[in-house]
């Protein structure tokens, strides 16, 4: 049973999160400001922390900075601040994920689980031949299987081919046409087709927790698609 710390100055939100997470067999420790949270982390064996940013006494940012001095547990920020700049700042100071309020409880749970899996199982998978990975996304070309944070994802053959192509060439941006040509080995003429775009949307829905805010399969608007090279965050 994993210990999760939930820290928010709004008691009702903490309680609601507790309900959701305890249904998933997590033990919850509750804190209402940064100082309390740090004390709990120091005294208990906490596997993951969900932290609000705007809190009395010590805010989330300061708390995470302090936390990172002695611990590398995953931290998920949960904040009403939804600006891009807020997210970037939060991730930069050492958080692993950023969820904005009001949040979808299912998404939060999924993210918690994903972060936990990555924290506990990452590195356990050995590097084998024909295995490509980026962050928590792993493509096993031997068995033609795909894993996200250790969980197997079911893909159609076309979806698999597209994802495999992009993962193999991670970091590079490919236009719809380029992907089309590489998958169907067809150097044929221009197709104003959006089939590839639809497929990619489907892949995203399968491998991403929030397809609107993808971690792995990114849309470069007006240019194409790519698999993020670096680990997210």
């Amino acid at each position: 049973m994993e210990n999760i710390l939930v820290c928010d100055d709004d008691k009702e939100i903490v309680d609601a999160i507790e309900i959701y997470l305890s249904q998933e067999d997590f033990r919850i420790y509750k804190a209402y400001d940064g100082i309390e949270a740090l004390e709990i982390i120091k005294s208990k064996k906490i596997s993951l922390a969900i932290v609000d940013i705007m809190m009395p006494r010590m805010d989330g940012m300061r708390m995470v900075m302090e936390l990172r001095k002695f611990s590398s547990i995953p931290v998920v920020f949960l904040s009403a601040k939804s600006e891009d700049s807020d997210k970037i700042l939060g991730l930069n100071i050492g958080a692993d994920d950023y969820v904005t309020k009001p949040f979808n409880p299912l998404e939060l749970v999924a993210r918690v689980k994903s972060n936990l899996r990555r924290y506990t199982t990452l590195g356990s998978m050995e590097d084998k031949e024909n295995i490509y990975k980026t962050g928590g996304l792993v493509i096993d070309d031997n068995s033609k299987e795909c894993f996200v944070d250790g969980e197997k994802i079911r893909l159609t053959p076309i979806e698999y081919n597209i994802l495999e192509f992009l993962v193999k060439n991670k970091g590079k941006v490919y236009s719809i046409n380029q992907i089309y040509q590489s998958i169907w080995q067809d150097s044929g003429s221009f197709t104003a087709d959006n089939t590839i775009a639809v497929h990619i949307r489907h892949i995203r829905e399968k491998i991403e927790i929030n397809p609107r805010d993808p971690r792995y399969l990114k849309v470069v608007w007006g240019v194409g698609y790519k698999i993020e090279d670096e680990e997210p965050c």
Partner: protein
Amino acid sequence: MLKKPINFKILILVQHVLAAFVAFALVFVFAGTSIIISGAKGDYSYTLYESDRNRAYEDSYLFNNILGNNLADVIRLIAIRSQLETAGEYDSEKTIDVTAYVNRGTTLPGDYVTAVYTVADLLKWAQSGFTYETRNFTEEESRSFLSERTTYTHLKNNLMSGGMNSYLSSGLSDNSVAFTVSGNSIPSGGTHNILVSRYQTTDGRNIEDLVSNWEEYSLLCSNVEEAAKTLLYNFEEYGKLLSYYGYQSSNLRYYISRTINGSTSVYTNISELSGETTGIDIKSVFEAYGRYIYYCPYELKYETNTLIKENVVRSFLKTYSYAYPDQIKVYVAVDTIGYPCSDDFYQGKSSFTKYMPYRTQILILCFVAAFIYILLFIITLKSPLVVSGSSIKTEIACLKNIIIMAVPLGAFVMASVLTQMSYMKMIRLENFPVYAALGAFVFNVGFLGLIYGIADKVKEKSLWKDSILRMLIIGAKNLILTTTDNGNVIIRTWIPYIFFVVINLCLFKIGLAGIVIAAFLDILIGIYLYRQNLDRDSIIKVIERIKNGDVKSKVDVSSLHSDNIALAEAVNSIGEGIEKAVDTSMKDEKLKADLITNVSHDIKTPLTSIINYVDLIKREDIGNERVIEYVNILDQKSQKLKKLTEDLVEASKISSGNISIELSKIDFVELINQTIGEFFEKFEKSGLTPIFKANEKNISIVADARHLWRVLENLFNNTCKYAFPGTRVYLEMYTAEDKEGKKKAFFSIKNISAKELNVSAEELTKKFIRGDESRTTEGSGLGLSIAKNLTIAQGGTFDIRLDGDLFKVIIGFDIAE
């Protein structure tokens, strides 16, 4: 600082005195630098040399220059005396061989035609004039008029030996022999000029009696005439020079003896020496006078205690070689012991002693005075007020002072006219420095009055205010203004124009000068109009810029003229007003955006709890159907509230310009395909069929990709929400040129609206406006507003067209190079 105007009066008085002194000193020094001394032949101008300062007068250049001039005159006097005198006295019966006399400077041939007259006859003839008659001669008459034979004179001895030239030789007794030769040609007839014979030669003959042809006749006539006229001129000078160098009138003493053919003649102005001089040592007599020159070319002797060199004397003598053979003795002296006569030597001495010693001192004093004058001038000019505030009109004050300044100058000119003296001579008058000082004093009164008066007016800033010219100009201006300003446009424009045309026509009537003046005036008017238009142009440019959004644009008023300045200032203040208004509204928008952001933060936290607990309720096992329905409504509305807050923040941020735009080159077709891909299921769910057509494979545009995605997302969402289910959605992409000829890419999305569109296209993009007024559908009503503002923020265009139920949005972007 200097006190009170009283002090200034004293200061100015001091300045007047200083000016007077400077004038006095300058005139004094000038007069002493270049003195005029009247000599034998009028006024001679001499320069006083600084190097003479420590010398005695007799050793000075001045003295020697005077002596040199006198020496030349004396040598000329003796030459003339030798022509007119016998034994030291004027001899009217002295004979003159006219041909030899005319050619006295050159050499005569051994035989020549001549006539001999007495001095008196020649002088009288020259005074009464030579008259010629024109007569016609037959050959016969010619022969009888002229002599049959020509009379020649033969000089026995015509050598240059002993410095004797032809003229001197011809004067020797028994040296000339006359003989006659019969004419070798017959004189021709025709018209000839005949000299009317007034006097006859010493042997009682006329000119025609001496020659046998016309050539000889006219030559002899002209010789007679020339000899007579020259002699008369010399005779007049003889009188003048003789009296000038008289013993009683000059300090110069001379004694010149010349020996020709054994007989010696003496020319002197010392009566004791004119007679028998045996036993008298002439040289010692001359030495005793003081300064002397002794010159005897025959013995190659030259002695002097002056600065005159032997070659100077020799060159003087050479000019008159017909009078001076080698056997001469020249004694010249100046009585420097007593200066008994008031002549040029004496004048020179008095000038020398008067000016020489003080010249430098006076000059230094003069400079000091001038320096003090300038110093006082500057001090006075810099002090606040000099003359207590007189309110005289500028021009009158100036005129008064200019008249004062003109008085001494006028007096100087008048004096010169009345006394008929040259300015230079007047300046050298003994008392002139005093007059100059007085004149300078008066002039300075006017001058300082003028300068200080103007300076005061400048300091009081009343130079222009007190001016009559200003009064006239203002009067004219008021007249023009009152007649034109309140009049209507016709009066304001046509009356000056007609006036201008009439002036032009009048000027053309005058003639050439009028045309030139008219052309000049027209050029001025042209320049004026050009400048006016230039001003207008710059104002219009600024208005144009303000119109185009550059509200900070300003007209540079300093480069404008007359009424355009007022216009420009008005434009500037309108611009400032707009700038202020834009600024304020930007600030307001920003404030609003901040407010909305803060409020939405505060809303989000409780909203989170609402959503979460609604969700938790839904998970509970609720048997009551009505509760389930209510919870569903709560769920829907809380989700909508969430969306609304998000959109609100975004919309306010965009409209307050609080977003960053990162323009890059993107493929518009690719973007649309991606977007369609994203919305594929949504279209299907809404029962819509998207149809995408692009007329080119790749269309690159310049835009911010993320923001453009937001625009398209909003538009597609809009379509999914409001399009009539079961219809097709047409998506078109094409390139076209806009009004300014710039190539642009356009994307249009059109669909059939499910509900009747009862709003205008413009209203649709306003915040919180939706196609249906009842606001029952989902959506915040901000989608189109956000899309439009985001598109414009990226430099794109955003158009909504409504045609019945057909709803069409066209967005356009610049094509990337």
